[in-house]
């Protein structure tokens, strides 16, 4: 087994708010192997975007790390000073955001920004940086890269902007690419094209990709392994085929069952999960999913659930799952 390129170890993170500290991540353990595509699935508020931000060392000003580490190639990036963190970003790890409009400055051309992103490439001249940016735009499928370099962000369509954002993230050939809801703002046709592009790029650049999304279809299309999050915890980790065909955690099962795309027969009523996420200012002592779970027993409400290994690389955080 090769060394993971990125590993999150027992990470707990809280957001300080006037109403108390919100426990956004609670003891998360997750690792990403070189060249692997890992999907992080879950509903709004489950902590998946917080995890993505923590992976790149940008958890936000009101975030407090309560315990744990994020190791990137052996270094604990949360412990590094801001300058050292900044030097890792781009070169070692890069990020693609949901809304590519806000990822770029509206007052500079795409070309100027793509050259700026290579500021750490000390040996390269401005002309070389321009050329590698242009080549990367051609690689991500922009039909006229020279023209696109001279455009401002608002002159490109959403799909084109997302392609440029991916090109920008790959410019420095990072080992890990983190994509937070990369297709959520796009039409289905653009979504299919971005999925296809990420697949090709992974083969070309051998970088590991972490896809954070609530869209189970995107994960099924793209990922090797999936981590399902609920209320700040990873409740199930599995190879992609096992997750969709032999899910073990009741939350994963409920999530798959209520996806309208999973129901091909026309149904008058769709299954729902019911209930709400627990208040993470005061996390429950037992299983966080117990109040919404159909399998819950009294034990689930009081004792924290164990992590049960059900197969190699497949585990679930649940009292009721048996190996």
């Amino acid at each position, binding site marked *: 087994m090769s060394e993971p390129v990125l590993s999150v170890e027992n990470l707990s993170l809280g957001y300080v708010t006037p109403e108390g500290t919100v426990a956004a991540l609670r003891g998360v353990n997750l690792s990403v192997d070189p060249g692997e595509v890992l999907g992080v699935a879950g*509903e*709004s508020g489950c902590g998946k975007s917080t995890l993505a931000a923590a992976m790149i060392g940008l958890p936000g000003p009101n975030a407090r790390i309560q315990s744990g580490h994020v190791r990137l190639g052996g270094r604990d990036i949360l412990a590094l000073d801001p300058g050292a963190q900044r030097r890792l970003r781009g070169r070692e790890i890069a990020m693609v955001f949901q809304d590519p409009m806000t990822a770029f400055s509206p007052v500079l051309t795409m070309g100027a920004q793509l050259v700026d992103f290579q500021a750490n490439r000390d040996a390269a001249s401005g002309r070389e940086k321009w050329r590698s940016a242009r080549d990367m735009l051609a690689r991500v499928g922009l039909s006229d890269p020279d023209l696109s370099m001279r455009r401002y962000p608002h002159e490109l*369509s*959403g*799909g*084109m902007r997302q392609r440029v954002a991916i090109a920008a993230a790959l410019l420095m050939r990072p080992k890990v690419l983190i994509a937070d809801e990369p297709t*959520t703002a796009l*039409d*289905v*046709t*653009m*979504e*299919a*094209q971005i*999925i*296809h592009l990420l697949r090709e790029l992974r083969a070309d650049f051998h970088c590991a990709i972490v896809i954070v999304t*609530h*869209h*189970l*279809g*995107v*994960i*099924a*299309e793209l*990922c090797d392994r999936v981590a399902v999050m609920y209320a700040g915890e990873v409740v199930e980790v599995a190879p*992609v*085929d096992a997750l*969709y*065909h032999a899910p073990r955690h009741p939350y994963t099962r*409920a*999530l*798959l069952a*209520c*996806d*309208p*795309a*999973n*129901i*091909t027969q*026309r*149904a*008058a*009523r*769709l*299954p*729902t*999960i019911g209930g*709400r996420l627990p208040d993470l200012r005061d996390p429950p002592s037992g299983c966080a999913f117990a109040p919404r779970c159909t399998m819950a027993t009294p034990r689930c409400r009081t004792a924290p659930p164990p992590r049960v290994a059900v197969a190699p690389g497949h585990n679930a955080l649940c009292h009721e799952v048996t190996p």
Partner: protein
Amino acid sequence: MTALLDIRDLRVEVAGGGWFDPAGRGRLTILADLSLSLAAGETLALVGESGSGKTTLARAILGLQATSGGTMAFDGKPLAEPGDFRAIRRRTALMFQDAAASLSPRMTVGDAVIEPFAIHGVPIGNRRDRIAELLAEVGLAPDMAARYPHELSGGQARRVGVARALALKPALVIADEPTAGLDVSVQAEILNLMADLRARHGLSYLIITHNLALVRHVAERIAVLYLGRLVESGPTGAIFADPRHPYTQSLIAAEPLPDPRKRRADLAIRGEIPSILRRPAGCEFHTRCPLADAICRYDRPTLRDLGQGRRMRCHFTDTTTKGGRHELEHR
């Protein structure tokens, strides 16, 4: 049965304007000769990518967008003059795509749901009872009435939007991307709510969306738009089982399925929807169509009746196999 909403040959054009054409002599066609009808109690889904004219059509139906040709009628009465639209506005309602942003941040949920009564000067009776009644209708507790929009979750904001749309007991609800941006479990809740309300009040829905998984469960009929032109329409089941227009086929094929065993190796559709500033000649879809032939580049296909309530706009009769296509005899 007469249609609740009947649209014939609707055209929406806007002035070109801009730097080179300040007088707006050039006209841009947003919707081109669109005909649709919606029966009472029916749900029709308008499907297409961004820029296909779905939202413009909704705005035109509500009188918020000037039209430049064609006729519209609601419940048998023509919609032409501004007064006509005002008269029907009590019987139509719009559910906005961004539910939280469509609510005033300074109005409580209770005030927001009964605002339509004030706007239309409808006697309201007991305010408190009416608020509780409307909130109960969409499955919200009465104490939600005192909340402000920023205190709501995405699903709750969507429910408030539904309550507001239903306040005056409309006959037609136009829902613009009713589940965009919601989690799957909340999506299912909103769709169930819409189905319940339809059964209870006999509503008709016009659903505007690019989410095909949603359409399959709620709509009886689908109309697919491409660059403001209807390319295919028909019953939902028939279209999903046997999509005939190459654009409909690629839309269905592009939808990512939540099953890793059904991964697609190839891309269903390439390129992007062209800008309306550069509307392609001939068939608008020819720039992205896998079947496109010489004829598609200069000759615009007409909408053909395929029987069983299906219509399709393509030169080819057999669009299901790439090799076995047959050109329609050209007049």
